[in-house]
């Protein structure tokens, strides 16, 4: 039995971005993020997500986004908006989750999320250098 597809996943599929053949390592990344998503651990794993996106453009270490990116994005978008809205120290939040926000911003443009629902980012904010 197939579960209902979300509007964003349907929109992503309409973009005709070919699903790449995954290596064993990429399949494991996919399992990792699907597990985080389905077990309701996205908020708890936001630091891990940021760390992963520091070293990878997308969640399955592919050159283009996959459905896993879109499914996680649906959960991360409201969390990101909440993070930015609930602090006065915006710079600190931007610095801490800079890679998550980069990824969210790319996907919200790609999926043409309506302006009012987007994470509003100040691209002129000067962030401190990242200590790796």
């Amino acid at each position, binding site marked *: 039995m197939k579960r209902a597809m979300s509007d964003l996943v349907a929109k992503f599929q309409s973009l005709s971005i070919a699903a790449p053949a995954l290596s064993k390592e990429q399949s494991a990344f996919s399992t*990792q993020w699907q597990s985080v998503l389905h*077990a309701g651990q996205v908020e708890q794993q936001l630091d891990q997500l940021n760390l992963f996106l520091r070293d990878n453009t997308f969640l399955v270490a592919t050159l283009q986004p996959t459905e896993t990116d879109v499914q996680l994005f649906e959960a991360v978008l409201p969390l990101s908006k909440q993070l930015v809205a609930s602090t006065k120290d915006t710079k600190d939040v931007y610095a801490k989750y800079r890679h998550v926000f980069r990824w969210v911003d790319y996907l919200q443009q790609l999926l043409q999320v309506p302006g009012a629902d987007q994470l509003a980012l100040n691209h002129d904010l000067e962030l401190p250098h990242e200590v790796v």
Partner: protein
Amino acid sequence: MVAQISFNKEASPSNYFNYAANLKLALAIEYATKDLKKIEINDDNKTAQFVNGDFSLFNANAILCYAMDDFAGQDSDEFHYALASLEALFRQKDIPQEHASECVQKALASYLTELSATPSSLQLITFVNAFTLDPEQVIAKFPEFPEGIKKALALVAKHTPRTSAGFKH
């Protein structure tokens, strides 16, 4: 480069979460494919992790699937149920035991109908999540576990700190 696994030795987020993660890691060691047979246990790291050169994973389900090189069934209802209905309970402060038992009962009736000597990664994920929530019910259905699971249970007992708070194992 020898692959390394470290078990979760932290007290948080919950005993259920830690036990399930560690049992999956122990099963990853027991059921690893031949190319990964020499997995070392790294006792210095205190969180669940698999490292092989530059490649690393922090999620126990992903580590188990990677070690077994078995990613089948992840778009199935069983995978979704094992995570969204069973594993999602592990982080709750007070797990409603009656509800957990009902969920385990459904998992045993609908998905975990058998436990062969060579189970799939998906069967093992469902097994661990059900066993963690309600071991008595799982043992009642499967009085004799396959050898790999028995060895993994012995291994996880050595590597999971024992605490008393509301935990059946």
